[in-house]
């Protein structure tokens, strides 16, 4: 005790800065010791959690596979299935077990179809898993709500479509995306109606996911995409252009022609690409006439269009641009000329002293 008293007295006699440094060192030392102990606890917890996860996974995988393959011939639930549902009903009350069951069901849902898929949906309802997902929809945390929507999408739960529709215009991009995927997953092209009112940009990430979802269905009967091609939201226009390309929308060619004069360059370029795909000969003539007014990127896209849609009467135009200052255009022009008039192409050496001519390109096109 006298030693401690002595140390305390000495401490009080120290200048303020030194007192502060020692006090902070004391706090840091305690923090280091406590954090080290806690780190040990966390690591042990994480290891145990992983072990439990594995054990649950093994257990419930067997249960669920047995459930799937023990149905009655008439499609009704067998006694075995009902017993499994009863057991799972208790298990899903535990969060960790619920997580494992859901992850196995996701996996199975991707692997099976038809009757099996219906069994999974029945199990999802009967065990009460659906209620946990629906509860998430009402959670004040956006990411929990988004997670809930994602889960309901994967199990094709239609009952909550009105509630999920409310999220289609949610201020958080991530929640909106999940809601859009839900709607498209359930209602296919009709689910895209949210595009009519979408004021926020539709990210490329969301667009790819929506397109992939749409392509999963057997019924590829697409709805009218004209309103979206005319949308004031550029991302919606770009998405509609992708739809037009994938689903060969010949009937919207006129609208696509209008888009060649769109104020947004990306939209104009995407329109040229779609029209190329749709053999838009009218568009080709229009672009040819306005070639000088196009941006360089549009000019390149146009030459890519010409590569596909060229006809002999395009020859004078191509000849005019054989030595275009741009590498890609020069390459494409030479390739196109070679494809429509080999003799003229072979005689080109005489002209190749043109100041913008790239002899490497000519050599390459000749050799290929």
């Amino acid at each position: 005790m006298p030693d401690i008293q002595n140390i305390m007295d000495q401490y009080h006699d120290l200048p303020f800065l030194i007192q502060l440094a020692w006090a902070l060192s004391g706090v840091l030392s305690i923090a280091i010791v406590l954090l080290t102990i806690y780190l040990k606890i966390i690591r042990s917890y994480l290891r145990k959690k992983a072990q439990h996860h594995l054990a649950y996974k093994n257990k419930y995988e067997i249960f669920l596979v047995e459930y799937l393959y023990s149905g009655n011939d008439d499609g009704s639930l067998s006694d075995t299935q009902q017993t499994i549902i009863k057991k799972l009903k208790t298990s899903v009350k535990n969060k960790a077990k619920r997580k494992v069951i859901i992850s196995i069901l996701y996996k199975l849902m991707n692997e099976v179809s038809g009757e099996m898929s219906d069994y999974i949906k029945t199990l999802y309802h009967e065990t009460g898993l659906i209620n946990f997902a629906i509860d998430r929809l009402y959670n004040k945390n956006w990411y929990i709500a988004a997670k809930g929507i994602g889960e309901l999408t994967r199990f094709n739960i239609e009952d909550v479509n009105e509630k999920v529709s409310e999220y289609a215009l949610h201020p958080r991009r991530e929640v909106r995306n999940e809601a859009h995927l839900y709607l498209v997953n359930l209602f296919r092209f009709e689910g895209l109606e949210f595009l009519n009112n979408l004021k926020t940009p539709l990210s490329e990430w969301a667009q790819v996911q929506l397109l992939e979802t749409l392509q999963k269905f057997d019924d590829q009967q697409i709805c009218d995409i004209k309103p979206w091609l005319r949308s004031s939201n550029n991302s919606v226009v770009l998405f509609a252009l992708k739809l037009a390309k994938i689903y060969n929308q010949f009937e919207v060619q006129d609208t696509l022609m209008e888009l060649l004069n769109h104020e947004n360059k990306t939209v104009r370029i995407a329109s040229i690409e779609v029209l190329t795909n749709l053999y838009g000969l009218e568009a080709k003539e229009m672009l040819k006439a306005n070639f000088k007014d196009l941006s360089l990127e549009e000019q390149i896209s146009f030459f890519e269009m010409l590569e596909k849609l060229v006809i002999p009467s395009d020859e004078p135009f191509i000849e005019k641009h054989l030595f275009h200052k741009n590498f890609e255009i020069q390459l494409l022009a030479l390739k196109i000329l070679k494809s429509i008039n080999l003799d003229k192409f072979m005689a080109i050496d005489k002209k190749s002293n043109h100041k913008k001519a790239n002899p490497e390109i000519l050599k390459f096109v000749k050799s290929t």
Partner: protein
Amino acid sequence: MDTSTVKIILQILHYLFFAYAFAAITSYIVLSIISGKETIDYLKKNSFVDYKDILSSTMSPSITIIAPAYNESLNIVENVRSLLSNHYVNYNVIIINDGSKDDSLERLIEAYELEKADFIINEKIKTQPLREGVFKSKNPAFEKLMVIDKENGGKADALNMGLNISKSKYVACIDVDCLLLENALQKMIKPFLEVTNAKVIAAGGVIRIANSCTIKGGKLVDVNLPKNLLVQSQILEYLRAFLLGRMAWSRLNGLLVISGAFGILDKETAIAVGGYDTQTVGEDMEIIVRMRRYMEEKKEKYRVSYIPDPLCWTEAPDSYKIFISQRNRWTRGTIETLRKHRKIGFNRNYGSFGLLSYPYWLIFERLAPIIETIGLLYFMILVILREVRWEYALSFLILSYLFSVLFSIVALYSEELTFHEYKKKGTGYKLVLLSALEPFVLHPFILYAAVKGNYDYYFNKKKKWGTMTRKGLATTP
């Protein structure tokens, strides 16, 4: 000068050192708080994301992996196999054999059934010419692979060749000896596709150390803590730098560097700025600074993103000689980049880039080793003159040491609560112990390398990359 003036000058000097240390520590605390917030947000945002569609979609944007190789004959076949096993659909791999003197090309030709292909290069960026030419595989199984054999021009030149050849919208520039996880591309491309209010010009990920890890068939199957103390210390250093530093700068949109080991660039912007600078040894930092500068000057909204997932695993130097050479180069790269773009510093025309990121790098990265060295020299002079006030010196030395230990432990928490890669029993204690040892086994060498880097930069201009001998990651067939 009378003694009172000297005393006043010394007093001012003391306060300057103190203020610098205080500012550095405060910045670490602030950055780690921001980093924590960013990591939590990232995990929340990605907790429900289904990457499956992006993975298999042909509508997803194309990515070219550009991997320069120089005398990598030992592991090149395995490394390329690993690059070809990515799960993303719309990607291709360009290996640039940068004038290797060994049999790298022959090994690739044999292993991947390569044949010479007709190819024309649109030389948007000037590079060294082709040597043997362009090679593609006869085997459709390797249709994603292209090998370019060119004259030696250095890593930056090889990457520029890749930029010229790539037809993709995005390029992933990587070190050929890095191990890229199968889901790396789909995760790294997400920031480019999801941000709608700005153009993402580059994205980087956390780099992890693969020494002693088990790799099977080009895949990482088991993460181990290496026995070598130097490598262990670097693991801790990387955790701190990536999980507590760069995540914070990502949130502040203030990242100045995307690791050359693995990063994705928007090709259009990379070419618009003239590609990689072949005159610097810090080409990975320099191109990011130049791309940012270009966007700022164009007054276009942009972002440089970062994700915390451990997607790329690399081999760290396991000898002090190689380690010092590597850090020496990093120091020279930083000096070169900051000097080249000094116009940005403290210039409000560049917004937070000029007023926050650049000054931070200048003061706490570029100048830190110099200030530390001056501090040490000054302290030694005081010791010789018997002018040290030991009660101050000791208390602050202990305080700064404890802070550095605590900071490393916080980095360990960040790792445990997010990706928990070092799962094995006993590793936790080792890492905590390492937090206590690292200031002695790693920091002095970092300081030495940085001082040497400064010296070489100013007085040894001929020095370029230095030696970086790699042993190759241990693989199990």
